[in-house]
């Protein structure tokens, strides 16, 4: 019942987003901002898998996001690849980055995992910043948005088409996320968050699960980064900076870590909030900051997490505890008859 309600709410969100450019147009929100919301939400979903579901504070995810943007941009500039191939190569770049840092991250947990991921992220940031022959250094690197050739669609990619490509990939990413967190793998990640030692004492190599979790987060970050690069036609070192990683964490916590649509809610507030408030006052960061403080105090589990908890509180299960001895005896009798067979 509860699950069906969640699925309907999710479908409703996806349907509304299909009309994003039309709705945004009425509210004077640029279509490219809406695309930014969705791709930011994709990256935050990856953070959510590690932070919200597995309990691992990944503070360097922006490095993988930036690798996605540079991977797409460099492959367009140097190899003149097409639109979709550039996205795939952006994802590949993020995966390579994740494979380099994962063996080190797997050796640490909790705050040390966070600090190590932050430090590695900054290494990638400085490489993008310093290795200017390849990356353009501080000035960044501009590149063309290649034409898209996919079935009936082929030609240059307008901002509206860019939104719909991002939307389609967001839907795929969301459905995949939903399936993953419901799968045995996803449930094991949640168990690792609860008690990694017990997971090991159930005969499972927790490291292997965490490694795959990191790689999945890298796919999400790389996809989002490639889309961002294609949206801006530009990649720059600050995409990899820890400040950007902090933004992903902030929006995940704000929307609700450990919920499917929490990152989207956080990304909407973050990206649109930044856009709207900055037109009103140059001190937009103060206003947004005050809003975050209010949210954290009012919704400790994030907006969606707190709403979910409130809905569940309404139908708490009746108090009952001690199981009658009769039930135990019946169970034993059954087990005995089973073992006799």
């Amino acid at each position: 019942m509860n699950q069906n309600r969640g699925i309907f709410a999710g479908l409703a969100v996806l349907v509304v987003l299909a009309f994003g450019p039309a709705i945004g147009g009425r509210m004077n929100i640029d279509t490219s901002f809406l695309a930014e919301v969705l791709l930011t939400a994709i990256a935050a979903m990856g953070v959510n898998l590690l932070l919200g579901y597995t309990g691992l504070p990944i503070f360097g995810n922006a490095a993988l996001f930036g690798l996605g943007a540079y991977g797409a941009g460099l492959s367009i500039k140097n190899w003149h690849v097409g639109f979709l191939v550039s996205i795939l190569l952006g994802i590949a770049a993020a995966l390579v980055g994740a494979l380099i840092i994962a063996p080190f991250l797997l050796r640490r947990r909790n705050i040390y995992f966070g600090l190590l991921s932050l430090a590695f992220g900054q290494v990638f940031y400085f490489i993008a910043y310093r290795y200017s022959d390849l990356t353009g250094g501080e000035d960044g690197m501009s590149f063309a948005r290649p034409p898209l050739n996919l079935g009936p669609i082929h030609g240059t990619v307008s901002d509206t088409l860019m939104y719909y490509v991002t939307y389609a990939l967001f839907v795929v990413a969301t459905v995949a996320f939903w399936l993953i967190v419901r799968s045995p793998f996803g449930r094991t990640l949640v168990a690792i968050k609860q008690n990694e030692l017990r997971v090991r004492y159930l005969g499972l190599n927790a490291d292997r699960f965490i490694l795959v979790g990191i790689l999945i987060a890298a796919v999400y970050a790389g996809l989002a980064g490639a889309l961002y690069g294609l949206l801006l036609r530009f990649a720059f070192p600050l995409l990899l900076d820890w400040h950007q990683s902090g933004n992903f964490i902030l929006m995940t916590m704000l929307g609700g870590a450990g919920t499917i649509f929490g990152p989207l809610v956080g990304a909407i507030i973050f990206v649109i909030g930044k856009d709207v408030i900055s037109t009103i006052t140059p001190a937009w960061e103060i206003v947004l900051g005050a809003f975050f403080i209010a949210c954290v105090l009012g919704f400790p589990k994030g907006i969606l997490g707190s709403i979910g908890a409130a809905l569940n509180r309404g139908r708490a299960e009746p108090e009952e505890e001690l199981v009658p001895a009769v039930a135990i005896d019946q169970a034993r009798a059954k087990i005995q008859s089973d073992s006799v067979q």
Partner: protein
Amino acid sequence: MSDALLIADAVSKKFGGVQAVDRVSIEVASGSIHAVIGPNGAGKTTFFNTLSGFFFPDSGTVWFDGVDITNETNWRRIKRGMSRTFQTPSIFPELSVYENLLIGTQAKRGVAFRLNSPSAKARGEIDARVDELLGFVGLAAAKSRTVSELSHGSQRLVEIAMSLSTEPKLVLLDEPMAGLAEAETDRVIAVIRDLHERLGLTVVFVEHNMRVVLSLAHRITVLDRGRLLAEGTPAEIAADEAVRDAYLGKEVIDHV
């Protein structure tokens, strides 16, 4: 030696300057209940941890099911058919009782690593197995409850059921009665006895409560200050002079 499921030979473990376990050996016959007892600080839990791979001994050897597992990592030991509980129940506190048992059950069936849902048939089998485990510890009615809401004794039973979810041959129980009320103790004693009698499992447990030890154990290993003090049947241990001096109170001996 032939039918011993678990053998530890001259296992030692040092922490800083403290020799917590000093050349302790144990041989656990397949299908038996074996207790490890001793006063506080005797090294029982440290010894237990070398058996279960919580950490590795400095020297000595541990065999399980005929294989040297001395330096084998914990999750591999579980896959071989070992399982354990901890003094403080090691559970998934914010998950339901069902989910607590699900993780090990799907791990045993080799589907834990799947990124898509198993078939309806496989899920049905897993759910049936979870129900069976819940029935065994008498917690069927608490299936959908969050584990942290349950009493300490029920959490202990959930943990025992979790340790059974991997279908072990050997169950290691570290002070299974720690922190339990009298009525809860009786429930857990009944369940441990069933591990042996109904499921035919081998059980090794560390315990302070002499009533529990004497009513359950077939053999007892007594540790004192990291060393093996005595080993034998409950009657032999109760009659042992050295054990009397080091550990046992007179009333316990009289009880036997």
